[in-house]
């Protein structure tokens, strides 16, 4: 039985359904060195990967909780009450018809096979700890594009994985990157060869189904010189009264002149802790773009980062956060200008409603040798009522006086004039708020593939329903 509060917080979450749990392998709750060894053994991993996991596990045990972010809220996580590995299907299938029926039905309900046919270059569908479905368009494969789930990536391309794994986000980065490195499972592994432009987005979809589940996917994307890729990820989970943990690590490497865009619409149910470390490195004249939408979860702490390592590299980070009742979206962006003539744009938009809290936490660093850098940071917050909260925590470390920096921040409320105007055109107060909210997020949604944008707008309209007391 769900508590009243949880019910209210969850509202009309339409992905809150769950299937009866079917697992072929399920570990007991809790974490130990043995659990870490068991995961690695089960996956038949090379010894070097087992060693990395053990090292990371030991670091996790010793490491303090993070101090960057809304750290008090992390005390609600009980690491002993989490299932660290759950295998729901023995194989990763290439054909949806071979995916176990109940799992396939879930992804049908989420619209994944349909989207794949219409507009995607490839799909990975992860259910609990591992991918249950995976496919890539033949023409991409012929061009040498590698798109695999991370477990298969390690099996088939161990040298590539060994060369790059943990180079952008080392296990020692923070407690949760250590945890992920110790128990990682699933995620995507992508390599785009030199000069290849992947025109259609490739997508990964992450679904948590079981209670008290921990999902620790690990994604590594390498775009070789002059190549480009758009990767899209979505995620949902059932609504439970107890918490689940999603703690991913994503590493992006954009070689000289390459471009990676990584788009996320995170729509976890309101009982999920979403603690993710996402970082990309951009070499000479390369671009890394994070398009990051945070709608769901109980607590999200996520600050997509870019290391501008090569001259002329560019970072683009557009993020939106929606915090409803019982939610805290602690999101932001970090950009490190490490080379001359690097540029970055950060746009953050957040909405708080029903006592929800959204925070922008940003880091902008310019090192002494990074001459002629430009950066623009814009943070806009929209508050829908008096009970909600919005904060901005910008940090700047500027070591070079030639840097050209702009920072703008605004906090606004929906004006009575806007509501009256829209209502005089036949829109109920809720519909009017939905329109205003969609408009506020528009600079973000216009960057998404159209199908995602439509879905996001619909989600936000649903969130506005029942919001007028």
């Amino acid at each position, binding site marked *: 039985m769900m508590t009243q509060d949880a019910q209210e917080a969850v509202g009309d979450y339409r992905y809150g359904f769950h299937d009866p749990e079917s697992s072929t392998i399920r570990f007991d709750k809790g974490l130990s060195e043995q659990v870490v060894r068991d995961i690695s053994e089960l996956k038949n991993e090379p010894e070097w990967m087992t060693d990395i996991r053990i090292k990371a596990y030991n670091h996790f045990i010793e490491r303090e909780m993070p101090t960057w972010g809304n750290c008090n809220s992390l005390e609600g996580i009980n690491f002993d009450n989490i299932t660290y590995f759950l295998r729901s299907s023995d194989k990763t299938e290439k054909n949806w018809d071979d995916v176990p029926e109940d799992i396939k039905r879930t992804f049908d309900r989420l619209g994944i096979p349909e989207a794949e046919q219409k507009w995607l270059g490839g799909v990975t569908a992860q259910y609990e700890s591992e991918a249950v479905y995976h496919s890539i368009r033949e023409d991409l494969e012929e061009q040498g594009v590698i798109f695999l789930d991370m477990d298969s990536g390690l099996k088939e391309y161990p040298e590539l994985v060994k060369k790059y794994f943990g180079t952008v986000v080392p296990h020692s980065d923070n407690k949760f990157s250590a945890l992920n490195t110790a128990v990682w499972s699933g995620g995507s592994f992508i390599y785009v060869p030199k000069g290849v432009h992947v025109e259609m987005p490739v997508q990964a979809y992450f679904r948590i189904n079981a209670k008290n589940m921990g999902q620790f996917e690990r994604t590594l994307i390498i775009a070789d010189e002059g190549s480009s890729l758009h990767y899209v990820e979505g995620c949902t989970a059932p609504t439970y009264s107890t918490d689940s943990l999603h703690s991913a690590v994503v590493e992006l490497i954009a070689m000289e002149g390459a471009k990676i865009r990584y788009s996320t619409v995170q729509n976890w149910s309101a009982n999920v802790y979403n603690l993710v470390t996402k970082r990309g490195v951009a070499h000479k004249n390369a671009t890394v773009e994070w398009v990051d939408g945070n709608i769901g979860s109980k607590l999200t702490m996520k600050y997509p980062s870019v290391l501008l390592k090569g001259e002329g590299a560019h970072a683009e980070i557009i993020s939106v956060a929606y915090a409803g009742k019982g939610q805290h979206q602690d999101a932001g962006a970090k950009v490190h200008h490490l080379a001359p003539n690097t540029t970055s744009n950060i746009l953050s938009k957040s909405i708080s409603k029903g006592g929800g809290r959204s925070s922008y936490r940003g880091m902008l660093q310019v090192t002494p040798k990074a001459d002629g850098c430009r950066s623009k940071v814009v943070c806009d917050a929209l508050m829908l009522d008096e009970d909600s909260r919005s904060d901005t925590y910008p940090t700047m470390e500027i070591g070079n006086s030639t840097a050209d920096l702009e920072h703008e921040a605004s906090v606004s409320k929906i004006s*009575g004039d806007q509501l*009256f105007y829209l209502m005089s055109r036949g829109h109920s107060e809720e519909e009017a708020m939905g329109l205003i909210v969609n408009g506020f997020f528009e600079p973000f949604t216009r960057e998404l593939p159209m199908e995602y944008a439509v879905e996001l707008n619909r989600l936000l309209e649903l969130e506005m329903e029942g919001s007028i007391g």
Partner: protein
Amino acid sequence: MMVDELLRVENLHVSVEGTPILNGLNLTINRGEIHAIMGRNGAGKSTLANVVMGHPAYEITQGTIHYKGSNIEEMEVFQRAREGMFLSFQYPAAIPGVQVGTFLRKSVASVRGEAPPPREFRKELKNAMEQLSMDRSFLSRYVNQGFSGGEKKRLEILQLLLLQPDLALLDETDSGLDIDALRIVAEGINSVAQNTGCLIITHYQRLLDLVKPDVVHVLLDGKIVESGGPELALKLEDEGYDWVEALA
């Protein structure tokens, strides 16, 4: 033809934040009639339009507003709109990030109670925009954001044409328009006026040269002090409002 009463305002007293603005106003508008309300700044003209539309900041302290025969005091703003009431705003609000095209389609769907078939709607929209000499590029701009005064008024009249209201309240729709734009806007109003009851709020005669009112009212201190034919507007234009004050 039978008289089709749309609006009946009786002894209306309205306050904003405790300050009385309207003090016993009476007005009846039937379908097919054009009424003009003139008066100095602060006389209560915009208040009348806003209170009829249902603006929450305006408190009716006495009197009634009947729309299509029913007392609408408890009726929500959007319900009034769905029942065919329309207000062309003096200062329409900007809605950042919402494209004009989306806004128009959604508004038409709300007011009509169902989404118009896309092809028909596109055609309707194209015709209306041509009638108002509006460029297609309008549709992808954000509602009223960065619009000039004239552009805002054209967008209001475009909505008037698309929503085809029963009662149209036009609050200083002529202000900020050059003479060509004024002519276009006036033609727009005339094209719906036959089937609509119109209340035109204006300071100037020049719109009334183009949209012939049936009745002109003079508002002073929250009350209609004089009503007459179009000649009344001409007299105000020539002589100003001083003589009206003598009437009060």
